[in-house]
């Protein structure tokens, strides 16, 4: 129900770009999933290279060539059968009925029944085969996308919104699916049907054929004219609807602020303007997109009249013409006008599917995370000596984020990275885990160059707890097990105990089997964090990274987590990023980073004595000197 495509028009006015336009609200999609984000700069959706995309889609269908051949054969037989059966109706009228012949009539009827029976079966077979192939292909494409997402470098995810990627998996793949299931076989079917019917009609009677097609140019012209108008109004309508929906989205999401500021009336007024604005163009768009139906019906009726009059006159003037032929042509005429009508639509929907396919292939063609080097080293156990030497890095060329970073962490040491937002702390972490690759310099672990290590091996030795813990929709148990898939339930419980999570998990009705909805939104921040810590404990890495792991929990919870954290940090090399400096005071080394450089380094005490950047940062969190501050308060309250 929440599919934005529901807003598509039911009629011919439907163009491939419309479903996307709906989402092109001025602000783009909501961050983090939800409806797919707009794709600015793509107002009209046409595949860039339809042929290439088609070939690529075909290559997915290759394994099913047998089913496809059967389906195509079915279509040809169905078309032929139809033509023959219709012809037989006319012939029967003219011969067996006009000069009554019971035996001939019965025979003809039985043959027709047989043909129709076969046709029905083949129709079913054909559509079933297409469905089968379509679903298999789409499932394969979807699977490849999922595979691909696992292989893409993190950079790709930082640059592309999750909403946009989601839209490729859902909307774009869906449109491929519809296209494969119906459009392609229909286009094929229509084409075969039109051509063979026309040929057959010409063979039966040239004058009646002309009578049947005389209105087609008119129809063409009218359709094009109306479609043009309809497109214009529809685009306008989609723009206005987009603006209206954007307003709804924004202000319903921000409803609580609206309430706080008592701005309901203003918001309602703005809404009413947009809402009324939509009305006029909405009606016009609806009329123009709906009008093609009645017009086609009327032209069909006129054609009907022309055929009957032409046939009738021919009979009167003694030209070779029978009632049976007239009857045939009435049916034939319908058979060719309908596909011609629909062909344009089907091709449009195919094109939009191709455009969708292109976007999907675009993702599939992005370069993977760099492969491991040949003969990559696999370290079974590591001590955890980490060295960064002269490391430089930039996300975008020319805008360096890290400049000449040198850091030495001996096994078992705790290194704290401190500094303002954007200083480059998290970037260092991204380099250690090889989420990003350095520009120059060298990183080694136990003396081995990071880039000589197998990536999977490297990451198996590193554990990470992030500020925004991501938990999956699954049970608590499974979320902890994520750290090590072969862990037993007992080990999971053990890890949870060390993480101080066991207590609260016990109190949830279903305990470890409680299902976490929607990324764990039914747990508090602190609880989520403790689960993440349990997950990291279970993974038992030699190197641990805590990136603002406790920043978003209150200090009392933090105190609890701190205990868990100390358990976790024991005997490992730790990299800690923290806003709250109280949490890192015991670090073996504190590196103060600003503007991509390490500007101070030392222990808490040495840095405090130095009275530099760190000292200022620290003091601001604890309000000048504690003692004098106490006195001040006492003085005021007395």
């Amino acid at each position, binding site marked *: 129900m929440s599919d934005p495509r529901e807003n598509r028009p039911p009629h011919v006015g439907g163009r491939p770009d419309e479903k996307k336009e709906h989402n092109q609200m001025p602000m783009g999609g909501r961050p983090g999933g939800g409806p797919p984000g707009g794709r600015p700069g793509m107002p009209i959706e046409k595949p860039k290279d339809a042929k290439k995309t088609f070939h690529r889609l075909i290559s997915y269908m290759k394994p099913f060539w047998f089913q496809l051949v059967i389906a195509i054969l079915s279509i040809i037989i169905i078309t032929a059968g139809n033509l023959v059966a219709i012809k037989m109706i006319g012939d029967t009228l003219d011969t*067996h009925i006009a000069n009554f012949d019971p035996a001939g009539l019965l025979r003809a009827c039985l043959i027709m029944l047989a043909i129709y029976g076969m046709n029905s079966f083949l129709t079913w077979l054909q559509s079933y085969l297409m469905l089968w192939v379509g679903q298999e292909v789409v499932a394969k494409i979807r699977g490849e996308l999922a595979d691909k997402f696992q292989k893409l470098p993190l950079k790709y995810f930082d640059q592309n919104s*999750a909403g946009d990627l989601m839209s490729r998996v859902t909307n774009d793949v869906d449109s491929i699916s519809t296209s494969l299931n119906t459009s392609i076989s229909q286009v094929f079917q229509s084409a075969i049907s039109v051509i063979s019917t026309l040929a057959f009609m010409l063979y039966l009677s040239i004058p009646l054929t002309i009578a049947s097609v005389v209105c087609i140019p008119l129809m063409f012209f009218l359709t094009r004219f109306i479609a043009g108008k309809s497109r214009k109004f529809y685009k306008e309508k989609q723009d206005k609807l987009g603006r209206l929906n954007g307003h709804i989205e924004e202000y*319903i999401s921000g409803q609580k602020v609206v309430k706080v500021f008592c701005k309901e009336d203003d918001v309602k007024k703005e809404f009413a303007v947009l809402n009324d604005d939509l009305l006029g163009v909405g009606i016009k768009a609806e009329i123009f997109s709906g009008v093609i139906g*009645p017009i086609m019906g009327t032209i069909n009726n006129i054609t009907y009249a022309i055929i*009957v009059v032409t046939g009738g006159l021919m009979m009167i003037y003694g030209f070779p013409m029978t009632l049976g032929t*007239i009857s045939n042509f009435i049916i034939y005429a319908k058979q060719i006008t309908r596909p011609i009508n629909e062909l344009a639509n089907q091709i449009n929907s195919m094109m939009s599917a191709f455009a969708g396919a292109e976007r999907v292939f675009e993702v599939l063609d992005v370069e993977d995370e760099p492969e491991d080097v040949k003969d990559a080293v696999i370290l079974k156990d590591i001590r955890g000596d980490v060295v960064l030497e002269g490391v430089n890095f930039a996300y975008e060329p020319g805008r360096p984020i890290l400049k000449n970073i040198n850091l030495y962490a001996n096994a078992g040491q705790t290194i704290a990275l401190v500094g303002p937002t954007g200083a480059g702390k998290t970037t260092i972490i991204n380099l250690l885990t090889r*989420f990003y690759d350095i520009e120059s310099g060298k990183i080694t672990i136990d003396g081995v160059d990071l880039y000589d290590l197998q990536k999977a091996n490297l990451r198996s030795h*590193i554990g990470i707890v992030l500020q925004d813990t991501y938990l999956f929709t699954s049970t608590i148990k499974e979320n902890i097990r994520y750290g090590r898939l072969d862990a037993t339930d007992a080990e999971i419980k053990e890890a949870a105990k060390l993480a101080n999570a066991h207590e609260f998990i016990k109190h949830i009705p279903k305990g470890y089997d409680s299902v976490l909805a929607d990324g764990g939104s039914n747990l508090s921040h602190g609880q989520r964090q403790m689960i993440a810590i349990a997950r990291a404990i279970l*993974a038992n890495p030699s190197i641990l990274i805590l990136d603002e792991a406790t920043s978003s929990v209150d200090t009392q919870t933090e105190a609890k987590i701190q205990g868990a954290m100390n358990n976790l940090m024991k005997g490992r090399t730790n990299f800690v990023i923290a806003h709250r400096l109280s949490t890192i005071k015991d670090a073996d080394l504190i590196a103060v980073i600003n503007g991509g450089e390490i500007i101070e380094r030392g222990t808490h005490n040495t840095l405090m004595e130095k009275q530099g950047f760190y000292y200022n940062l620290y003091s601001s969190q604890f309000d000048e000197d504690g003692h004098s501050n106490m006195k001040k308060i006492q003085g005021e309250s007395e």
Partner: protein
Amino acid sequence: MKVILEYLKPYRLFVVLAPMFMVLEAGIELLLPKIMTKMIEYGVGNGDIGYVAKMGTTMVLLSLVGIMGGVLCLACAAKVSQTVGRDLRKDLFTKIQSFSFRNIDTFQTPSLITRLTNDITQIQMVILMSLRMLIRAPILCFGSIIMAFTIDAKMAIIFVVAFALLMLVTAVIMKQAAPRFMRVQNKLDAVNTVMRECLAGIRVVKAFMRNEYEIEKFSNANDEYKEASIGAFRLVLMIMPLMMIILNGSLVVILWVGGYAVDAGTLQVQSIIAFNTYLIQMLMAVMMLAMVFLSMSRAKVSFERVLEIFAEEVDIQNPKNPVTAEGSDGSIVFENVSFSYGENSENSILENISFTIKGGETIGILGETGSGKSTLVNLIPRLYDVTAGRILVDGIDVKNQTLEELRKKVSVVLQETILFSGSIRSNIKWGNPDATDEEMYEAAKAAKAHEFIMGFPEGYDTHLGQRGVNVSGGQKQRISIARALLQKPEIIIFDDSTSAVDAITEKNIRDSLQTAHKNTTKIIIAQRIASVKDADQIIVLKDGKINAIGCHNVLMSTSEEYQAIFDSQTKKGVIFHE
């Protein structure tokens, strides 16, 4: 149903006209085969060219009249559906605007948005369709049958049988298909959930090297979705072949029975042709009906979802006899206040809270997550209503003040920062559009936002994306603080609203508030003791109760809880021994 009639009422003229125009169009479509039979019978039969020409012209003219009917019907239907859609949307939006926090919590924001957008569109579409097809389909369907009866009653029975079969097949398959499509939807949701989570948690996935595991998980969901889709569509695929065999079978039967009738002299050959035309028309009509019912059943769900919103009772409303405070001072009194979200007070969030705040004081509130801090402050501007007890602002019960007046006096900077698309200027001035630029600068300076705003190339005219995506979290928080300050409230509440602001800036904000907004009552919810240490009173909340209240040094000596928090943040105060 009654509600929808209410909405249709203002446009009843068009509601009545649309089907009438449709009757015209459908009627003509029904007449044409009949005229054709006449033309062949008298015109061709007697070689009367004039009659043939006359009937031919009549058919063309009638067709043209038909198109008028069709287009006019469409115009009326479009007008009604779009206008009703607009009205419905407007009323729905208005209703949602009257919702209290509690109402919003009940429905959840995404659900509200879907109802306002997709559900309304769905309803609009079905109104349009109903006004056109719901009349057209039965007219064509039963009209065809009736026309068949006027030609030959005995043969028309074939129509009735075919009709019954068609309806039966459609009904059975659609009934069977519905649950299968539900399953497809569920499986699709599952696929999307796995994918969305995988994208959102990509760092975790990569860090733990769980790529294979995720692929496996996805591939299972993907396969299940594929199976479900094939299962559902397989059934629907049967409709077309079955309809074809029924239609074509009937055609053959008409031919066969008709053959004997023609021989017996009770039927004309051209009547068989007319029969065939009517039969096809009937089939089309049945298919159309099936489609209409399908979308109606979907729209019904949408409509029910919309009705749910209309039915929701708004729990916070303006008092009947509001009292205006004389000379406001910004004082707040809690008297035995209790609060629970549920109907019955089993899970009470706040219990028996009493305290007094004098105008101009600064109050700090500390407590663990879930201890009720946010709830407590949300009660002051009546974002929620107390379950028991009362709250006085300026000496008057908040329930006796108008919401407008109360919320103008009390400004809350919410925990979740929400900015709207538009310039920074329009965002800051949002709460007080009449403010001058000078006042805006002042507020921004107090919120320590002025400097970074001026750092943007376009300064205050910098455009913010939806929900302010192109500024950092801390900057957003500061803009929203400026927005609240510009409202010049007597009481301002910071609900942990500097969490993303670094410590130095936060201290500067506190200092500037102290000087620039000396007389404003300030309530600060915070995590860091440093944020509230200078407050006149600090309230320590625990499990919805006041655990301790007093100023910093009193609490240091009396409250173990407070000391524990202090210790946890200062590591037993070691830091002070410099």
